[in-house]
């Protein structure tokens, strides 16, 4: 109907009717790459022509050169290794402890009733507000760094796991009952497999937050690792070095999210 009225020549004919064609995947990728490259070129030109002060902004070429130097003299590999240990320890604890606590909270209603307010209170507390106290409790060093990472990243794991485990379909419970299932059967065959998407979503959030935790922990406790590299470089106006560190974090976040996304798709293939 809309198409026929267009031909009626009452001024509507000149109108451009909305059309939103979809674009192909490869075109999208190409355009995306173009955007990034275009930005880098603009940045480089602006820095080279003195349009911006490269003391503050650095430039893509300067960052690449800095990266080569930092890798060659072993500074960057050592920093990455140090950060990786903090990340692995913090995220590892969040994962294991978070899954266990989440499972218990999701499955045992009474425990949930007791613990849930505490968890919510802790979750609501800005972790950064605790930093000075963590210093008092754990000193300045590795253990404080790990504590910060755990405190920042554990809650999404706990809460998503608990939500996933407790959200059991009543019809599925009846089904299980009709075949004489025990409590453990219901946990094993219904609650746990049903919780997988929610758990993975929690782990994904925990992962991203763990990286943030590492940066914060390294700024605050001892300036170690990649976070420390960024902090000290920036203080001495080595913006190129600092930005190399930022890139390392960005790349890591992208890589981990991508890897987990792949795992998630595999585990989720039963969902429509």
């Amino acid at each position, binding site marked *: 109907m809309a198409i026929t009225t267009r031909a009626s020549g009452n001024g509507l004919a000149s109108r451009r009717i909305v059309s939103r064609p979809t674009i192909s995947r490869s075109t999208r990728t190409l355009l995306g790459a173009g955007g990034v490259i275009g930005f880098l070129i603009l940045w480089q030109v602006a820095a080279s022509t003195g349009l911006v002060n490269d003391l503050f902004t650095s430039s893509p070429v300067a960052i690449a050169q800095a990266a080569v130097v930092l890798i060659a003299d072993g500074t960057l590999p050592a920093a990455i290794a140090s950060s990786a240990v903090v990340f692995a320890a913090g995220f590892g604890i969040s994962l294991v402890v978070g899954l266990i606590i989440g499972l218990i909270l999701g499955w045992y209603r009474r425990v949930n009733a007791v613990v849930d307010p505490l968890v919510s209170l802790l979750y609501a507390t800005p972790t950064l507000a605790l930093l000075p106290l963590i210093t008092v409790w754990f000193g300045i060093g590795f253990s404080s760094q790990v504590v910060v990472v755990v405190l920042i990243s554990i809650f999404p794991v706990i809460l998503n796991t608990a939500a996933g485990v407790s959200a059991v379909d009543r*019809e599925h419970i009846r089904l299980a009952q*009709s*075949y004489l299932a025990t409590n453990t059967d219901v946990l094993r065959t219904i609650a746990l497999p049903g919780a997988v998407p929610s758990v993975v979503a929690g782990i994904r959030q925990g992962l991203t937050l763990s990286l943030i935790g590492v940066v914060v922990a390294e700024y605050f406790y001892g300036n170690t690792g990649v976070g420390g590299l960024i902090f000290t470089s920036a203080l001495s106006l080595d913006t190129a070095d600092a930005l190399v560190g930022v890139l390392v974090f960005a790349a890591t976040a992208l890589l981990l999210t991508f890897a987990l996304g792949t795992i998630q798709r595999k585990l989720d293939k039963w969902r*429509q």
Partner: protein
Amino acid sequence: MATVNTLNTANERLSTMSTTAPAAGLEVVDLGKTYKRRGQKASTSQRVLDNVSLSVEAGEFVTLIGHSGCGKTTLLNCVAGLTDFNDGQIRMHGKPIQGPGPDRAVVFQHASLLPWRTIERNVAYGLELRRQMSSAEIKQRVASAIELVGLSGYASHYPHEVSGGMQQRVNLARALAVEPDLVLMDEPFGALDAMTKESLQDQLMALADREKRTTIFVTHDIHEAVYLADRVVLMTPKPGKISKQVVVPFGRNRTRALTETREFNDLVRELRELLTESEASV
């Protein structure tokens, strides 16, 4: 078209069958159930089942029919052992039931499939929980149950990948796989479109004729109730009770053609009138 003669002989066979071995089937005796609801001011109670007695012989296909709220699903759930009751007794093979048992399997109203399990593993679910068979035996039993409902070739699909009608066939296959003495079906075709429904009724009928498995089938579709059943049990609400039982005189091995006959439609009309009357009298 079946001739009147074959119908009659089939009916005789049915009537002789129903007089043998009373202990082989299900007996519901004076069943009563009251729902108590605690209101803000006063507690209200509702008698959902009152004095319900019903016996189902081995191999018999019984449909339970009635308006919503008449207690037909509650009765089915009591027999399944999924709902408790206040008075009376339910006996299988002469023994009172206490909760769900391996002698009964439920075909649920909504397919209730586990979405993360393939069709094959959904069918295996009941057998797995019973822990009585090796996985090789389960595999074999599952394969034949899947074949029985005509889903060979879909074994490794996930539930969301198949149609609603197919999901209900998986639901049925899961119940049949445990080889229960009594199959309890709770309006399994209620949510399907008319064409899928008819096709599933025909398949169920063929299956029932071949397997001779004792079945109680709850529905609110009179047509369906008559087409499938050896006996139609009418229930009326407030309080939920059995108001009438009608033996369907058409024998087994029915086809769609039966539904076009006058006898069939007369019986449907008669039952509809009974239901309307009961509704009016409440």
